[in-house]
C-alpha cells in the first residue's frame, strides 16, 4: 500500500464544455471476461473519502464518478455534470447534472437516482470535522455547495482560484450511502461496501482479501465491457511477476523495473508505458546553516551521478530532470539542463563555500564537519528507494560529505519532516494531480506545520513569481513565468531533482484497448475489453 504524496493541482484555462455524449456502448466490442490484477497488500477502505492508498484509488476510480473527469489529454470532460457555468467573478460555479444516473443498487433495493442532494451531501460529509480524510485540505477554498434545483448545484468559492474546475473531479457518494449522514469514519459500513455511480460495482471482498468488482449494467456511459475486475492482494512484489507468468493474474498496474526484462521477453504480455506526473527528489532543510548555502546544495547535486543510478536501478526507464515541474507538463522548461555530474566541480563548490577536507576525508568548515542526516520513509516494497538512498550516501562520501541515513516508519517520518522539521535531507517523490502548481512547495507562506514547504525555503523572487503565475490567466504568459521559475529553482537547488520514471503496466495480450491514467489508473477501464475467444 504505497502512500502517495500529492500536491494540490493548479489549473488550466477554463473552458465552456458541451454535454457529454451518454449513449450505450454500441461500439461492437464484446462484453465479458474477467480481469485479475495484482495489488500489494489489502486496501484499508474502499470509499473515496477516507481512503488514502493507491489501491483504494484504483478501486474508487472504477466505482465512483466525479462531477467532471479528466481525459487522456489532461482536459476536463463532463461526467456526472452535463455542463457547467462559472460566474463572472469566478467565485460561483453552477453544475447541471445528468438526469439519467442511477446509484448502484443495494441488495433488495431498487436503484436510486443521482441528484443534486448527493453532491451537497458529499461535500458536507467530506468537510465535517469528524470525517478524517486527506481531501479536506484540498477543498478549503470552497465556501459552500448549494442545491439550486433537483439537478443543479452551485458551488461558491471563498476566492477565485486557477483551474478550480479540475478540482471538482472529486468522487460523489450517495446520500443514502453512509449509515451516519453527518460524517464518515472508517467504521462506517459504507467504507467497506460502497455504492457509487461508476462502471463497476463492488460485489464482494473475499476472505483472503480479494476485491471483486462487477460491471454496472446501468452505467450511464454504457455497460463496461469486461465483466469483472478482481484485485488480488500480494505480500511480495517479486511474486507478482511470477503470478503474471502463471496466469494467476492478468495485469500488473505498476511493474517493478527489476521485472521488466522478464515480462518484456514474454510474447503473451504487453508492456505499456504510461507517463506519470511525478518525480523524485532529495529535499533540503535550509534551516540548517550548512544547507542554507546554495553552493553546498549545488555541490551535493553535482556529486551525485543521477544518470548512473537511473540506468542501474531502473533499467534507464526514466528521465533525469532539472527543475520542479513534472516533465510531462507544459510548465517544464526543457531549456534548463540538469546539473552535470562532476565530483571535481562539487569539491570546487565546497571549497568555494569555505570547506576544507578534514583528516578523515570529510569536508569541514570552522571545525564543523559536513555531516548531514538523511531521513527516508520505510516502504518495504521499495527496494529501489533503498538503493537510491544508499547510492546517494555513497556518492556524497566520495565528495567528502558524510550522510547518516535513517529509515523511518512512514508516520514517524512525516512527523519528522513536516512537523518537527528535524532533518537535513529527506527523500520523497511528488505525484502531481494534474499540472504545475508548485506554489505550495516553494512559497515562503507555505512554511509551517504540516505544510509542503517543509525545507523552509524562502526566496522573495520565487515568491513573487509564484504569485504572479497564480494571478495570470494568460496561459502563454504563465508559461513564461513558470519557465523562469524553473530556471531559478534549478539554479537554487532547494531540492536535488532526480528523475521522472516511466511507469509500465504489464498485462495479458487478451486485454485490449488498455489505457492507463497517469495517476488515477483505471479512469478509462470501461472501454477495455477482452475478445470473446479469449474470455475462457
Amino acid at each position, binding site marked *: 500500500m504505497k*502512500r502517495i504524496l500529492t500536491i494540490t493541482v493548479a489549473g488550466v484555462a477554463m473552458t465552456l464544455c458541451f454535454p457529454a455524449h451518454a449513449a450505450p456502448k454500441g461500439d461492437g466490442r464484446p462484453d465479458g471476461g474477467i480481469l485479475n490484477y495484482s495489488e500489494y497488500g489489502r486496501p484499508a477502505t474502499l470509499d473515496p473519502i477516507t481512503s488514502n492508498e493507491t489501491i483504494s484509488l484504483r478501486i474508487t476510480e472504477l466505482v465512483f464518478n466525479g462531477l467532471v473527469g479528466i481525459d487522456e489529454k489532461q482536459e476536463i470532460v463532463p461526467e456526472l455534470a452535463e455542463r457547467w457555468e462559472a460566474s463572472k467573478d469566478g467565485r460561483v460555479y453552477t453544475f447541471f447534472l445528468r438526469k439519467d444516473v442511477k446509484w448502484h443498487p443495494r441488495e433488495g433495493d431498487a436503484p436510486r437516482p443521482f441528484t443534486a442532494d448527493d453532491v451537497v451531501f458529499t461535500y458536507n460529509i467530506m468537510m465535517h470535522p469528524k470525517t478524517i480524510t486527506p481531501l479536506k485540505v484540498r477543498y478549503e477554498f470552497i465556501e459552500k455547495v448549494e442545491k439550486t434545483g433537483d439537478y443543479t448545484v452551485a458551488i461558491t468559492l471563498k476566492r477565485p482560484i486557477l483551474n478550480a474546475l479540475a478540482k471538482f473531479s472529486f468522487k460523489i457518494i450517495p446520500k443514502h450511502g453512509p449509515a451516519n449522514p453527518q*460524517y464518515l469514519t*472508517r467504521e462506517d459500513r459504507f467504507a467497506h461496501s460502497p455504492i457509487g455511480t461508476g462502471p463497476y460495482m463492488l460485489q464482494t471482498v473475499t476472505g483472503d482479501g480479494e476485491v471483486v468488482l462487477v460491471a454496472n449494467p446501468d452505467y450511464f456511459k454504457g455497460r463496461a465491457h469486461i465483466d469483472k475486475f478482481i484485485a488480488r*492482494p*500480494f505480500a*511480495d512484489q517479486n511474486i507478482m511477476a511470477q*503470478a503474471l507468468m*502463471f496466469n494467476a493474474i492478468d495485469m500488473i498496474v505498476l511493474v517493478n523495473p527489476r521485472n521488466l526484462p522478464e515480462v518484456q521477453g514474454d510474447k503473451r504480455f504487453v508492456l505499456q508505458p504510461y507517463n506519470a506526473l511525478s518525480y523524485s527528489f532529495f529535499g533540503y532543510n535550509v534551516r540548517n546553516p550548512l544547507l542554507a548555502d546554495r553552493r553546498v546544495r549545488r555541490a551535493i547535486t553535482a556529486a551525485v551521478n543521477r544518470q548512473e543510478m537511473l540506468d542501474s536501478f531502473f533499467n534507464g526507464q526514466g528521465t533525469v530532470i532539472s527543475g520542479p515541474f513534472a516533465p510531462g507538463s507544459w510548465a517544464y522548461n526543457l531549456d534548463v539542463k540538469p546539473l552535470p555530474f562532476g565530483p571535481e566541480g562539487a569539491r570546487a563548490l565546497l571549497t568555494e563555500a569555505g570547506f576544507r577536507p578534514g583528516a578523515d576525508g570529510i569536508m569541514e568548515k570552522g571545525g564543523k564537519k559536513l555531516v548531514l542526516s538523511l531521513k527516508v520513509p520505510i516502504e518495504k516494497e521499495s527496494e529501489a528507494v533503498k538503493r537510491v538512498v544508499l547510492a546517494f550516501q555513497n556518492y556524497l562520501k566520495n565528495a567528502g560529505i558524510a550522510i547518516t541515513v535513517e529509515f523511518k*516508519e512512514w*508516520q514517524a517520518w512525516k512527523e519528522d519532516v513536516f512537523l518537527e522539521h528535524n532533518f537535513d535531507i529527506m527523500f520523497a517523490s511528488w505525484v502531481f494531480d494534474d499540472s504545475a502548481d508548485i506554489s505550495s512547495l516553494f512559497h515562503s507562506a507555505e512554511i509551517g506545520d504540516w505544510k509542503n514547504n517543509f525545507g523552509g525555503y524562502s526566496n522573495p523572487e520565487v515568491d513573487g513569481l509564484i504569485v504572479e503565475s497564480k494571478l495570470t490567466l494568460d496561459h502563454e504568459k504563465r508559461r513564461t513565468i513558470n519557465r523562469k521559475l524553473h530556471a531559478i529553482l534549478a539554479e537554487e537547488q532547494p531540492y536535488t531533482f532526480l528523475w521522472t520514471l516511466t511507469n509500465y503496466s504489464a498485462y495479458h495480450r487478451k486485454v485490449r484497448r488498455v489505457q492507463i491514467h497517469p495517476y488515477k489508473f483505471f479512469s478509462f477501464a470501461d472501454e477495455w475489453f477482452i475478445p470473446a475467444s479469449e474470455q475462457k
Partner: protein
Amino acid sequence: MKLAAIKPVSRVLARELGITALLLFGVSMVVFAILYLAPGDPLNVLLEGQSPRSELALGMREALGVSQTWYGQYAAWFSKMLQGNFGNSIRTGLPVLPELARVGVYTLTLTLGSLALTLLIAVPIAVHAAAHGETAGNTAATIAAYVLSAVPVFWFGYIMVYVFIHWFGMFPLISGTAARQEHAWLYFLVPIFVLGIASGTLSEMIRHLREELSRVLAEDYIRTARAKGAPVWRHAFKEGFLIPVTEIMSAKIPFLLGGAVIVEQVFNWPGMGRMAWQAAQDRDFPVIMGIALVAAAFVRLGNLLQRVVFTAVNPRASRE
C-alpha cells in the same frame, strides 16, 4: 472413560478455566500497559497531513471514543472486550473480532497443520531412537532435524517458492490465486510444510519425545509389564507417548504462531501473522491488541487441552 475419571477431569477443567481467565486478564493488562507507556499517538495514522495537536484532532479523538485517562481507556476497552467487542481497526475501521475470526481460521490451519506435520516426522524418529538406542539411522535423522531447525524459515520459504515455480512449474501461493487454480490443495500444503519443517521445533520435539519415552521405558512399571509378558507399548503409551506429545504440542503453539508471522508474509497467507505485521507497521493498536489476546487465548487453549488430557489419563493429577 469411566465416570470416575470424568469427575476429576471436569473439576480440573473448571480450575484450569479459572486460571486461563485469570491469565487472559493478565495478558490484557500487559498489552494495555505496553501500549499505554508507548510514546506518540496511534491516531496520527489517520490524520494524514493534519496536525494531531489541532483542535480538529481532539474532535477525532471524540469521534473514536477515546477517553483521556488510562483507566478510563482500559475500563472502556475491557468492558467492551467482555461483550465481544474488541474495537475497530484504526486502519480499516472494521471491527477487530470478526476480522480476527476470519483470519484466525487461516492461522489455525497453518499452525495446527504444521504441528501435525512436525509430529508426523518427529514421532517415528523419536520412537525409534527411544526403542533402539542410538543407531546410525536415527542419529542421522536427529542431526538432520537439528539442521532443519536452524534453517531461517523465511529463506526456506523462498527456496520452496523457487522450487515450485522453476522445477515443478507451479505457482505455490494461496490467497486468491491458488483457490481457482489446479492443485490448489497442494499450494495449501506448501506453507504448512515450510512452517512444519523449519520452524525450529522439530529437533526439540524429537528430543523431548525421545527423552520422555526413554525415561518411561526405564520405569519400573514397564519392567513389570515386560515381566508379565504384556505388550510394552500398551503400558508405555499414556505416559511415554500421549502425555509428552500433548505437552510438546501445547508448548510449541506459541513458537508456531510466531513462525506463522513470517511464513504468512512469504506465502501471502491471509492469516493473523500478516495482520499483525500490518498492524505493527500502522500502529493499529486495536488490531495488535486483539491479535495478542487471541494468540494468547490460542496458547492457553492448547495448554488447557493438554491439562485435560493429562488429567484424563493420569489419576494422580486429579488428586493434586
